[in-house]
């Protein structure tokens, strides 16, 4: 893997023209929220980027993240960029397995110690490290060991970034995010379930050209996760006008109205879905008629139900309300009866006095 050709050579063999490459650089530049004047710099940096060794660790995951990045409509330049890094270890993609694969990882670590990029997908179980092992090594140990020599870590997918589905209530394996374990290395979170392929490659490209991108409070690159879905949603005019789909096949659904009432989490979700879209810019979930699940946010699995509107309480509040009616009625009755009894008692205890008595006592 170490002798992989550089990007220009790979483009030639894949029939990608320089023009197409520059176009890609331009869109990447705007995607990364850089000024258009940076395009030549991005192109040059990409062409001559020293190919860092990349070690990709997959822990408790569903392979959706790897699927997403490898099944982007190929052959795209993103693929080539992805391929141009020296992917020295990825146990789903590499041919070797078990101890042979581990040997490759150890070799790559030794050769590039302190310089390689560590990509992680999947969460790490810490309740019992035995829940998830590779070649007999627990995820926890492997992460700690591999992170020690990494220049930086990219947590790909919501599982690695925030714990994801493994971390969801009741979290039987004690799944945690990479950042809960590794605290002394720069970590870039690229959440999404799975993340958009071009966002993953965009972050890799940014890392190769300009280093670590600017991150938000949740460790996400601001360029891709700076805006909410709701703010960039093409259905927003319907939201503003108060026009909502009430079911998945009513007039509103067919008319492309807002999906808020069907549980859309767009207002609290930050991602590039509404602008970059999926499948080479074909569409994104809301465009396909499904509400946003909020998959780039921590704990989105536990947000009270994918089809419950954001404004609806997440608990079993109706039962609570009924109990409160019964309880309130009982206490109200008791308190009223008590006051009545008190009043009756007071009336009974009332002694009648006349002016003579009063004079006597004073």
């Amino acid at each position, binding site marked *: 893997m170490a002798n992989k050709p550089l990007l220009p050579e790979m483009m030639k063999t894949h029939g990608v023209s320089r023009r197409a490459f520059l176009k890609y650089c331009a869109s990447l530049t705007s995607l990364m929220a850089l000024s258009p004047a940076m395009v030549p710099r991005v192109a040059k940096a990409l062409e001559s980027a020293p190919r860092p060794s990349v070690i990709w660790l997959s822990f408790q995951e569903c392979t959706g993240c790897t699927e997403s990045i490898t099944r982007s409509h190929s052959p795209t330049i993103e693929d080539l960029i992805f391929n141009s890094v020296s992917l020295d270890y990825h146990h789903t993609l590499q041919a070797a397995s078990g101890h042979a694969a581990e040997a490759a990882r150890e070799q790559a670590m030794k050769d590039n110690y302190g310089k390689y990029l560590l990509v992680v997908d999947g969460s790490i179980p810490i309740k019992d490290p035995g829940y998830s092992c590779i070649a007999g090594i627990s995820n926890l140990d492997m992460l700690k060991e591999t992170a020690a020599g990494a220049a930086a870590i990219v947590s790909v997918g919501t599982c690695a970034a925030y714990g994801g589905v493994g971390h969801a209530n009741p979290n039987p394996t004690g799944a945690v995010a990479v950042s809960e374990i590794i605290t002394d290395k720069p970590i870039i979170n690229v959440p999404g379930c799975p993340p958009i392929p071009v966002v993953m490659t965009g972050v890799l490209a940014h890392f190769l050209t300009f280093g670590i991108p600017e991150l938000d409070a949740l460790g996400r690159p601001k360029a891709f996760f700076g805006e909410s879905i709701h703010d960039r949603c093409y259905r927003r005019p319907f*939201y*503003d006008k*108060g026009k909502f789909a009430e079911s998945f096949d009513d007039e509103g659904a067919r008319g492309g109205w807002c999906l*808020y009432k069907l549980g859309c989490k767009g207002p609290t979700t930050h991602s590039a879905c509404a602008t970059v879209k999926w499948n080479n810019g074909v569409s994104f979930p809301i465009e396909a008629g499904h509400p946003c699940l909020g998959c780039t946010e921590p704990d989105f699995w536990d947000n009270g139900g994918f089809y419950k509107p954001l404004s*609806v*309480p997440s608990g079993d509040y109706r039962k609570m309300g009924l109990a*409160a009616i019964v309880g309130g009625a009982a206490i109200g009755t008791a308190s009223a009866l008590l006051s009545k009894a008190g009043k009756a008692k007071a009336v009974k205890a009332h002694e009648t006095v006349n002016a003579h008595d009063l004079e006597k006592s004073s």
Partner: protein
Amino acid sequence: MNNPAFDLLMWARGPGFDIALVIFVGGIVLRLFEISILGRKRDLAPAKGNGFLQGLKTIFSRSVPREGLVKFAPVTYIGGYVFHIGFFVAFFFFAPHIALIDDAFGISWPAAGRVIIESVTALTVLALLALTYSRFTDPVRKSLTTFDDYLVLLLSALPLITGYVAVNKLFGDPTMMLAVHLLTVEALMIAFPFTKLMHAVSFVLSRYYNGSIQGRKGAES
């Protein structure tokens, strides 16, 4: 890694709402039971008019100002109307609120657009400010005002202001502002049965009592 804003929102949508709901509903029912069981002493004098009908009439007639009073206290009346109608519109015609009512009771109606909701909300807050101002400046009203009144004014203003800020992303993280909005509503719900806010329910009973007592004595309302 957690997002404190998201966690707060989930708390406000979950346990926070449940607690507020139990106190709100339980408190209202409790007070209604108390009021109606305690009742009033029987009036043994022969009736000179129909207390029942006059009672019913008073429930509505007291919503219309008596002649000359609007001129006498314009801020109180106009501000009061704007606030009450505005609060009603902002609450019952904003889509996310309708979604909640739909979920709870299975009934829904068309939502108003953003322009209406936002201008109404702004007007409502202005009305509240005017009402508060008049309480500060008018010596009579000032001396009549208790802590309870200021608390109730604040508790009614906060959901309007935070809702406006959250929807328009004026400042703060939008998820956090949404959580704060829910928390202010929950504060309002908790205070409701035990402050003057309760008038939104008990006005029916008190107006009926007043109207029927006077009606029995032969006074028209």
